[in-house]
């Protein structure tokens, strides 16, 4: 792979990590959903570029799935859910945004150290891709851990899936089945969590998952 296409792939993957940090930084639900749509769009660009650079046409399918589902359908649906349920529009964080961002920087450093050290023999593009996608996965998990609101936990979960898709497309020769299955798992997770949100909302008039604990009799 020549220098320019490598640089572009690198740029797009780095953009994915950047959008992950943007996700961590948001404290409004609508803004969060918009940033998530942006991340999905960056993922679409990245996958499409991989498809072009690797000459692997099946990756265009993955890119299309990312664009349609993740950048349009799911953020739109979540927008509607938030609007219809009248959910509190602020994202409640644990530990403060600044601290979370610092932890995120540590996670990116960690995944760089681990992956770059573990794969000295792999192609340079695959190495960078793997390292960046592990960062995205870890940042998504960090978001799930540090957010109380169920909607933002769903977003964290799906940004994890974005990282996985980036890893799957970065490695050359990964069959299409994997990407399709990932896309479907995301869809199913979205459906399940959507229903789950409705259920919580109907029962408790809020989507704060702390209410669940109160209901179980663990906190007063």
């Amino acid at each position, binding site marked *: 792979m020549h220098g320019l296409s490598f640089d572009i792939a690198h740029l797009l993957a780095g953009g994915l990590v950047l959008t992950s940090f943007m996700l961590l930084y948001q404290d409004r639900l609508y803004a969060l959903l918009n940033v998530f749509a942006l991340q999905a769009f960056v993922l679409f660009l990245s996958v499409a570029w991989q498809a072009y650079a690797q000459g692997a046409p099946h990756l265009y399918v993955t890119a299309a799935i990312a664009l349609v589902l993740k950048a349009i359908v799911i953020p739109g649906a979540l927008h509607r859910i938030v609007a219809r349920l009248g959910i509190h529009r602020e994202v409640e964080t644990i530990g403060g945004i600044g601290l979370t961002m610092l932890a995120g920087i540590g*996670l990116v450093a*960690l*995944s760089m*150290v*681990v992956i770059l*050290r*573990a794969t000295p023999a792999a192609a340079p593009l695959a190495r960078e891709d793997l390292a960046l996608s592990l960062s995205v996965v*870890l940042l998504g*998990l*960090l978001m*799930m*851990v540090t957010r*109380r609101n169920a909607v933002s*936990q769903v977003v964290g979960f799906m940004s994890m899936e974005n990282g996985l898709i980036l890893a799957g497309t970065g490695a050359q020769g990964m069959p299409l089945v994997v990407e399709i299955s990932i896309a479907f798992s995301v869809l199913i997770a979205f459906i399940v969590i959507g229903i789950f949100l409705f259920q919580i909302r109907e029962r408790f008039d809020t989507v704060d*998952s*702390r209410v*669940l*604990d109160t209901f*179980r009799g*663990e906190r007063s």
Partner: protein
Amino acid sequence: MPSAVGALSATATVITLWCVVGFLAMAFMAVAACVLCRLRDPLPIVSSPDVSSLANGAQPQHNGTPFIYGLCAFVSLLILAAALASLLSGAGGGEVVLPLGLPFVGAHFRIDSLAAFFLIVVNLGGFGASLYGIGYGRHEHEPARVLPFFPAFLAGMNLVVMAHDAFTFLFAWELMSLASWALVMAHHRQPGNARAGFVYLVMAVLGTLMLFLTFGLLAGTVGDYSFSAIRAHPVSTPLAGAVLGLALLGTGSKAGLVPLHVWLPLAHPAAPSHVSALMSGVMTKVAIYAFIRLVFDLLGPPDWWWGMPVMALGAATAVLGILYAMEETDLKGILAYSTIENIGVIFVGLGLALAFKANALPVAAALALTAGLFHIFNHALFKSVLFFGAGAVLTATGLRRLDLLGGLIHRLPVTAPLFLAACLAISALPPLNGFASEWLIFQSILLSPQLPQWGMKLLVPTVGALLALAAALAAACFVRVFGIVFLGRPRSAVASEAREVDRWSLGAMTGGVGLCLLAGILPGVFIDGMAPAVAALIGARMPPQTSLQWLSIVPVAESRSSYNGLLVFLFSALSAGLAAWAIRRFGSHVTRRAPVWDCGFPDPSPVTQYSAASFAQPIRRVFGGLVFGARERVEMPAPGDLAAAKISVTRHDFIWEGIYEPVTRMVLLAASVFDRTQALTIRHYLGFVFLALIGLLMVPALWS
């Protein structure tokens, strides 16, 4: 003809494997037969069959029982013959690989000389127990709880000895553990048996875990778990020490090394008596086989210090085991504790062999190992007979407590002399076999000045002194057992109405005693028979004994020591016969009537006899304060008060209180701590996953 010899040995392996298949088939057959029986005439469910109903009263008929036990005896005999042929022909052992177990790895089986020797021990015990079971099993109320597991137990023990890769070994080891656990739980409604089964299960799991770690370290990063591969890649020195420790823990927990012995005196008496005989006489030996296989064979050349922990543990086991036996008042419990003592004696022999082997003294090492193996064989014999005897007492009276027995020599005229002979053998009195093997162990202890290390020079005589103490206490212990159970007057009504047991039981005991006598009179034959196994492990063997004059044995040199069991036997038989004849011939023939000696109490009540506790009192006064923290309290009534004086003894089991109770408390504490993690929020669990992931990623980031 190496090829023909190899073929013969592989034949033995194949025959034995078919026999094991036979055992397993019998287990299934027994299950099927029991199900059919239950379908045909459903037995009334006995709510609590207490021990006394085992006595002569009810004798349920079970036609399948003699059949199964008879088949077991036959198959054991077959394996015995195959193993004997394999050992005597001295074949190196062909390996048989079956496409079972792990795919592409298979199950490896091989009978080398060591395995052949242990197969003989296992199947001799199995044959005796099966024969005994033909008679004893008739009194079993719920044969469906015993019959299926008995052949499975035999199959497991045979497989452990034959296994030649770690997976097969561990599988067979677990089969043996689980089958014996089921047999321990056969009478699960009797008080205490459920606890015995639980403790046994926990200790068995612990032992298997240790063996898993042992094999993991042995196989290392090579990843080939067959014994030949392990042998080809010996582990490095610091790891070898860890393997030795793990092997001691893993096999010691099954063999009954102090302080891992706690399950043994609970579980062995709980099983039916012929199974107790198998567990005490044979299963502990299979554990010792595992130790020998691991440490002498697979672990490579020993370091000089390896013998020290083995010997020290062995000596402590011997002394503590027999002291516990002195305090015990349950007949089968005493036998179980005495098993612990003998295991200690055997481990001392093995530890000496390790020390000599490490210091390049192969002849002395061969002597010590031969002594250990010979004692393994002997203990399997006489401990089986003793448990058979205890089973006979149980059948005849339904009692196991010494304080309720007595005077059985009149009621059980055949069992009593057989039991006495086994008591003599285990007390190491010539001309029986116990003396021959313990004498060999002491001979190897006397060779210890040849060891160069000062630690050994100091340790070995101490160990020798402890062994001598244990041997003397064992004699005292079995005087107590025989005296309380068979002599004196009956202490309960049941004991005074006991009836002699059936011929199968007596036949099994007679055979065992006959072999004890044979091994005691002709130890040279047995020592030479074991020589191939010893030579394979040490690289040297004891000088051949059968060619010596007068069938005596000379372990080192004629000028140092020699022993002739035949002469001792002939001398003692002749002198005893002459004395008896002289007393009959020259003594007074006038019948005199006189009161029996009454201990100074003219009261005819049997309570005035020495009891089991009073017989043990002198020894308890000497050692009890130190070993058991025993305290005696005497309550004398005030003068003029007619109340009875009372003596009460409190004892502590320091091992249980010092090791097991704190561990139990820690487990419960940890359980209550971790219980809190069972009801956290989803976010907390996600946090755990996150932290675990970060922790795992930190490992490759910080390492390398």
